[in-house]
């Protein structure tokens, strides 16, 4: 079953045509990797899925994006609710300058949860899901800014999980991290995929093969090829895909 369907999506920033005729489907509870050279539109694409591009003044789109059959660009769509369902982890860890606890509780608080027992419970669950609990359980009141980069990124994942989303978008989540932290995040992705639909943008092709079931190759704002990750890396159908994954450009 498909969680997300994208039909004839075109995205413009002012006069710049960033995404061209994107048609794709994202299967439920799987990991989909988006690969492609810098500036090919991968990040713009995932930001279209939770309407983060709405924040950019001259953003314009054509076509439809469906989450569980509902058009997310329908004027009746509640963006707050959409972003609760489609969480996002950013390229650079961006915890709030608040305590570890308050970072994870943030999403709950803004959506009206104020009961302390419930907050405590959700924060603990989320930190455990993000494989961070053991490292921070004794210092929940300390600032999140004091954590290492890898811990901060797992905190951002915990913060997203606390909202109980259906989809988690990850925009190059390991690009600012060392190899050990990267491994931890990848392990985490394997754990999370049973419950969440994950879309991950990555520049690291090994990472794509390690974590994802499906891969889409983006080039100049178009999806050149989408397939099972194993197929795309072993037997790419398109010459451009082959050139990219074998390192001939990008």
């Amino acid at each position, binding site marked *: 079953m498909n969680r997300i369907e994208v039909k004839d999506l075109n995205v413009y920033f002012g006069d710049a045509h960033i995404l061209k005729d994107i048609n794709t489907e994202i299967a439920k509870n799987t990991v989909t990797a988006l690969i492609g050279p810098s500036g090919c539109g991968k990040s713009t694409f995932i930001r279209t899925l939770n309407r*983060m591009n709405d924040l950019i003044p001259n953003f314009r789109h054509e076509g439809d994006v469906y989450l569980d059959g509902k058009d997310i660009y329908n004027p009746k769509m509640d963006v707050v609710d*959409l972003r609760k369902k489609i969480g996002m982890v950013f390229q650079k860890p*961006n915890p709030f*300058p608040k305590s570890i606890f308050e970072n994870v509780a943030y999403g709950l608080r803004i959506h009206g949860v104020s009961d302390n027992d419930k907050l405590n419970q959700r924060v603990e669950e989320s930190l455990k899901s993000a494989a961070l609990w053991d490292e921070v359980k004794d210092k929940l009141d300390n600032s*999140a*800014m004091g*954590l290492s980069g890898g811990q901060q990124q797992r905190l951002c994942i915990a913060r997203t999980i606390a909202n109980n989303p259906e989809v988690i978008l990850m925009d190059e989540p390991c690009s600012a991290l060392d190899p050990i932290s990267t491994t931890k995040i990848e392990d985490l992705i394997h754990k999370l995929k049973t419950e969440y639909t994950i879309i991950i943008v990555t520049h690291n092709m090994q990472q794509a093969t390690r974590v994802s079931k499906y891969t889409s190759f983006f080039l100049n704002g178009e999806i050149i090829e989408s397939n099972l990750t194993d197929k795309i890396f072993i037997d790419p159908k398109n010459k451009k895909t082959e050139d990219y994954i074998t390192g001939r450009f990008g």
Partner: protein
Amino acid sequence: MSIKIWSPKISQKIMNAVFIISGIITILLLVLIIGYILIKGLPAVSLEFIFSDPIDSGKYGGIFPMIVSTLYVTAIAGVVATPLGIGAAVYMTEYASENKLVKIIRFGSETLASIPSIVFGLFGLTFFVLFLGLGWSVLSGGLVLAMMALPTIFQVSEVTITSIPSSYREGSYGLGATKWQTIYRVVLPAAIPGIVTGVILGMTRAISEAAAVMFAVGASLSVPISIFDPGRPLPLHLYILATEGISLENAYGTAAVLVIIVLAITIISNWAVDKYQNKIMGR
């Protein structure tokens, strides 16, 4: 082609000396002024001086009503100017795009900051005291000081809020927060150290004003109870004591108390800001 007079090593040494000397002169000036006021003024300061009423226009007795007036007008200025300044800064940074109105507001605020305080005083007399009928009162005086403190609070807040990384905002929106939730729960708490610094700068400017309040607050020698009572803040009292030749000794005493209040506010707020900053940034 550049003309080399000194070798890089020597010019580096000269510049080192220039910077160090500038720093030392700045600190010396500060120590000199504060030291001078305290040495001349502290002998007049006693508990009795602080807590008793003036006698014979301030020739004898204390300055209790002036201290109350000062705290009163400064508090009114703070209560009025702080939300306005922060509100305007939030509007400029989070709502308005870089358009004409934004430029006009910024220009207006810069102009407001450069208006001489005596002109503020005159405006306070015609607008607050006479036109709005607030009379000579700590309210009128406080409102004039609010106008004076507003540009500082606004400008410092604007710069601070602009410097908050947009990644914080993105993180908040990404979790489904509304614009107001993002401002209220993420942007403003992160900006508090800078905003408090701006508020304190504005307040210490206001607390030290004689010219701005002299036409608005009256010159009463008794303790103001309601906001409609006239008062006489410390700088005004100091000015009157000195210019009317009432008592130079008590003028220095008043100055010493004023300096101590300003120093206390600055030191305590700096300490609190550092503490908060360390807490949220995990240092």
